[in-house]
């Protein structure tokens, strides 16, 4: 296990008032890439440009709309980049209690347990520190042209309440901004 991760886990475990975001981790690089499996696992701090460059060597691509290649994949995940969720296969996180947890994995189909890996897309770093994400990639040819769509901004009171209670599930001490 990476010392960076162990260190962060320890800090979160001992902290009550620590406010952190995934950014400070500076944790980047491609962990595993299996072109014939259409799977790549990357550390959350990896820039999308780096991921795209690695994939391009095998004529593959991330099959979602990328707004800014200089952004880290973790940021795109936290911001809920358009259709990114569709390609997510698994995620590794450190929750607000300092536990290292895995949801999903590297396989195409997986319906065991709730789909936390996709649920955390768009969570803005408020629920957990995302350390590593696995994606399904596709040959360039099948990705085609991706267009931008607008997101709705309307949010019901019920939705707000559910989201705030879900935050408490992952971050009971309220240490993530």
């Amino acid at each position: 296990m990476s010392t960076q991760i162990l260190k962060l886990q320890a800090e979160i475990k001992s902290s009550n008032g620590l406010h952190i975001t995934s950014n400070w981790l500076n944790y980047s690089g491609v962990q595993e890439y299996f072109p014939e499996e259409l799977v790549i696992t990357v550390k959350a701090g990896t820039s999308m440009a780096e991921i795209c460059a690695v994939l391009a060597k095998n004529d593959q691509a991330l099959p979602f709309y990328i707004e800014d290649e200089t952004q880290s994949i973790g940021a795109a995940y936290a911001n809920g980049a358009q259709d990114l969720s569709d390609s997510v296969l698994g995620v590794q996180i450190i929750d607000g209690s300092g536990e290292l947890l895995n949801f999903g994995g590297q396989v195409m189909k997986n319906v065991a347990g709730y789909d936390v890996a996709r649920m955390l897309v768009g969570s803005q770093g408020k629920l957990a520190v995302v350390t590593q994400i696995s994606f399904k990639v596709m040959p360039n040819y099948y990705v085609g042209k991706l267009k931008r769509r607008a997101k709705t901004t309307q949010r019901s009171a019920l939705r707000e309440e559910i989201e705030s209670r879900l935050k408490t599930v992952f971050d009971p001490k309220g240490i993530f901004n």
Partner: protein
Amino acid sequence: MNVINELLDKFPKGIVLTGEESTRPFECDGLSVYRQKPLAVVLPETVEQIKQVLKICKVHNTPVVTRGAGTGLAGGAMPLSESIVLGLSKLNQVKSIDAEKQLAVVEPGVRNVAISEAVAHYGLYYAPDPSSQIACSIGGNVAENSGGVHCLKYGLTVHNVEAVKILTIDGEELILSRDDQGLGLLALMNGSEGLLGVIVEITVKLTQMPKLARVVMAGFDKVADCANSVADIIKAGIIPAGLEMMDSFAIEAAEGFAQVGYPLEAQALLLCELDGSESEVQAELEVVLKVLSGASSIKVSNNEKERLDLWKGRKSAFPAVGRLSPDYYCMDGTIPRRHLADMLEKINELSKKYQLRVANVFHAGDGNLHPLILYDANIPGELERTEEFGTEILRLSVDMGGSITGEHGVGVEKLDAMCHQFNAKELEIFHQIKSVFDPQSLLNPGKAIPELHRCAELGAMHVHHGQLPHPELERF
């Protein structure tokens, strides 16, 4: 007034079923070894009625097991002794179709194939095609995040749902859409097995029907060669519309049933469907045929009848195996594709160990395995041996970096196996997610996520001397 009387009192005749004869058909889903009669079965006709049912059940602290068409294979819709069954089959209308945006709004009881039929005249269809598609309902598909043979290229249910309207246990409406800002609650609802809310409306994405589809059937002398060809096709940059594999026993069973000309001498069979425009299919076909040059036999469909015939064998593999044995047990593990050949070998070894025959049918493109274990429930102990065999396969799947279920769900069937895939902290998060939506635990309680003490007891049984099972396997 007790819950049954209140339900009977509230609704017109025919909505609440209580008698022994009328509730018996609901005592199980597609996994018929698990049976339980509910207190009552409620078959509402409107969303308003569902809200009333939920309110009454909440007041009486009565669990609600939501049911679509009852074709699930994991006991997800099996009633509980103190529960009612909330059957949504009467909500079966396609409410609207937007051919331009390629969307349809449907009620949860609409059958999967009925969506494609309703939009066929626009040249559109609903892509996910579980084998039960003529019977299974779209509401159940969302609850299970169902797959099918065309997932690799066209995605699972979660990829083909644009929005859902759910009712919370309080009867409140919540609309979740792909374009929402915030947490991925729409994705969370897919595959939640009826534990978080009742899905009452679904907006599905529609896909343009391909101009042409052709199937390549390749027979192999060696199972490993067939398994490796799956990776080779994808390595060559081709994403087939379907990529399925069968072993010799499954070939024999399917051919005996469907008589479509499968090569009986082959040890393994690959079915590879290519679709798109004529030129796209031609280009892909050339690449695939080159990759498959080591096959012992090759056949390419030349027209729609031939294509459907080649699929007929695969699609009837389950009933075909059913003819060979009084009972069969279908597993649903997924593994990284590179372990396919290894997994098949291990299943063969286990088959010898447990003295039970296995027919293997795979969604090979997705690494999703459906080993069918043949058994006879009338022979004492054989079901237990079968379940033990199945559990070993699922544990192997997890140890290879895969999952215990790719598309059938956990239900009641795979609760023990869940303990192998997730640790206590992860399971605790799942339980807490449920209580965010359903604090009284009234929606399909006890399914999908095992209680921690269940895993602790199981762990005490399975971990010997701190040794992991299958230490030779690479872990992820």
